[in-house]
């Protein structure tokens, strides 16, 4: 027996885990800046500037987690990448156009002549909305097994709305942390309105998931497996309750605890994601292709792993560094 066991077994698992972590980091980090974009029309002009400033130094690094996640899917599970993305051809195209619009709107709204600014504000909102909706749609289709039936599309449309509201919720908690005064008070209201999107979204997916596949149903409701999953709904319920009571009392004097809603929202996100990952494992294309069937050759995965072990901690390190450098309340972003 090998010391590490069979590389055809542990390498795919390691890469599935890395991909999972990337997706999770992506939905939290880009989730908040997409959410800020979705909330854009609700803000006044000068507030828009501060909202942009609160995500300005981070957004493109946030988006690269999506590139890493889809990149890992591409390089570690090539056949799954093909199957999933061909099935989701249209929502992927809409998402990409959305990402393009919002990404460039960041730059253009700051540099274009003042009369054009409104146009780029709209592009930023529209791009964020397109991205969020199509990601939610893809999530729904994925959960339902990537089959284009009317029922599945209807479900996916529902998750599209829920995920968008969920993103706006985590976006609002970010704004609470990064701003002050009137805008902060506004953001508390947005968060109160948005938390329901997250709760309903988690509920809808939780209800649908076990009924799509008997395998997942067994995983959830047979003894003792049900025990492993039990902490997730209980902890999530506690977190939602805590968030709600916290938001009702916000903002606190001297800005105390302004980071807590964002942290709690992140924790909620982590749990929802953990539940999904647990349910779908070992499948990367639901009920069709396991991570072991879809994985690249072990020798290629090993080459990638060496790089990953060096690069990933570095990335984590300087991601933290950049959040530390731009910590505190969002101020004017200046090129000096």
């Amino acid at each position: 027996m090998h010391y590490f066991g069979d590389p055809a077994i542990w390498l795919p698992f390691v890469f599935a885990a890395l991909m999972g972590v990337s997706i999770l980091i992506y939905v939290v980090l880009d989730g908040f800046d997409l959410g800020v974009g979705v909330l854009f029309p609700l803000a006044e002009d000068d507030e828009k500037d501060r909202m942009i400033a609160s995500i300005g130094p981070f957004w493109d690094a946030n988006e690269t987690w999506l590139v890493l996640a889809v990149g890992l899917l591409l390089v570690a599970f090539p056949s799954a990448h093909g199957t999933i993305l061909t099935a989701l051809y249209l929502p992927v195209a809409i998402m990409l156009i959305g990402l393009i619009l919002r990404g460039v709107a960041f730059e253009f709204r700051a540099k274009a002549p003042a009369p054009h600014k409104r146009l780029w504000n709209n592009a930023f909102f529209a791009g964020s909305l397109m991205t969020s909706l199509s990601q939610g749609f893809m999530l729904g289709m994925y959960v339902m097994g990537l089959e284009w039936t009317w029922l599945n599309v209807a479900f996916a449309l529902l998750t599209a709305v829920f995920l968008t509201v969920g993103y706006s919720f985590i976006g609002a908690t970010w704004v609470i942390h990064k701003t002050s005064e009137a805008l902060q008070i506004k953001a508390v209201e947005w968060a109160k309105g948005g938390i329901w999107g997250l709760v309903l979204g988690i509920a809808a997916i939780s209800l649908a998931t076990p009924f799509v596949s008997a395998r997942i149903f067994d995983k959830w409701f047979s003894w003792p497996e049900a025990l492993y999953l039990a902490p997730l709904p209980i902890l999530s319920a506690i977190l939602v309750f805590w968030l709600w009571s916290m938001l009702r009392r916000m903002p606190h004097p001297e800005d105390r605890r302004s980071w807590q809603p964002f942290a709690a929202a992140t924790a909620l996100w982590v749990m929802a994601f953990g539940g999904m990952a647990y349910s779908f494992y070992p499948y990367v294309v639901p009920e069709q292709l396991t991570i072991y069937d879809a994985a690249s050759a072990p020798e290629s995965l090993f080459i990638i792993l060496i790089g990953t072990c060096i690069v990933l901690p570095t990335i984590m390190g300087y991601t933290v560094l950049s959040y530390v450098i731009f910590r505190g309340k969002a101020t004017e972003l200046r090129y000096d």
Partner: protein
Amino acid sequence: MELETLLLSRIQFAANISFHILFPTITIALGWVLLFFKLRYNRTGEERWMEAYRFWVKIFALSFAMGVVSGITMSFQFGTNWPGFMEKVGNIAGPLLAYEIMTAFFLEAVFLGIMLFGFSRVPNWLHTLATFLVAFGTMMSAFWIIVLNSWMHTPQGFEMIDGVAHATDWSAIIFNPSMPYRFTHMVLASFLTVSFLIAGVSAFRWLIGGRTEGVRVALKTAVIGAALLIPVQIFVGDMHGLNTKEYQPAKVAAMEGNWETDTGVPLVLFAIPDEEARENRFEIGIPKLASFILTHDWNGEVKGLNDFVTEDGEVLHPRVSPVFWSFRVMVGTGLLMLLVSWTATYMIMRRKRGVEGLPKPMLYALVGMSFSGWLATLAGWYTTEIGRQPWLVHGVLSTKEAVADVPAPLVLSTLIAYLAVYAALLLAYIFVIFYLARKAARGEEIGTRVAPSPAAAPKAMPAE
């Protein structure tokens, strides 16, 4: 139907990657130019270098954003349109793409924040370091992508097991025969593109009266840089061509418009290649010159396109016209760059008159050449990539084997949407560059992302 999907998918991929490559072409070299400005400033303490830095870092930010978002599109399109690519050669393409994403993308994206907005927030050395790391990251990004692209042209270091490529020798894969030429050619193309962009925009600012010291150093640096690099580029391009002749003779035959294998082949300056009759019409050529350039022998033998048709009539060479013409556009633009940059340098050097030595027509010519680098780069990529057809990976995987079975109307509708977005963004990009130039020429402060307003006034600065 199948054919339509293939053709539309190819057009869509070409559209996306053409749009994408415009921006890395700028950022690869502009990062190093910014580092140069910053280092000059660190050494001399002269404000003019920082003035140039501050203006061009904004163009960098804009180009970078365009590059990031259009690059994300690419990583999805492998799956949506070309699933056969990763299925067959994923074991090789995968690690190369992974290294591109990991080392480079993140290095750029994270330090970019510090480079753009950190000047007054971090120590000067860290800001300089961030500038260096962004430039280095962009370069590494280009390196890995060019490695993969070159491997698709000149694959080696692998074996086929059950129809799937498995790597056997990574250093052979990375240092595949065309990689050193292609990488050098592309990096130089990037520096030339940036040189002409900086020269053009600076000449524009100079013409409309923004004659600051920052404009002066930028214009001078760019013109002299271009003049130094263009002969190197022509030399490297020639070596790249010789390398192509060895490994992809069909491509060279298409570039030259040479149908029949022969000795003492003329260099075709102009012709209209007729794919049906398999001959050139209206050909104007210089006798024996192609043989001399390609074999360094006036009577050397050069392979013709007819050698790449199998006995049962399958054509294994690319369509001739697009390769033939894009090659001529590239070479023509390159020669024009040589002419303009050398003339301008001579005018600047003459009696040490500096930028004042440039007459108005020359300044207008430089403005007109602002995006000449884009033209040459795109034409060059079309030459090499269309020249690779009908292969996706030369001799290993054909393009039509790799395409996804997506209905043609769906590909068409998304293609139209992409094209509309790209056209709009390209216009906006060029418009904004010249808008920023005009604003800078009027001496207005630019680039503050947030207009100061009463509500934003109480700024809570981070504790420092």
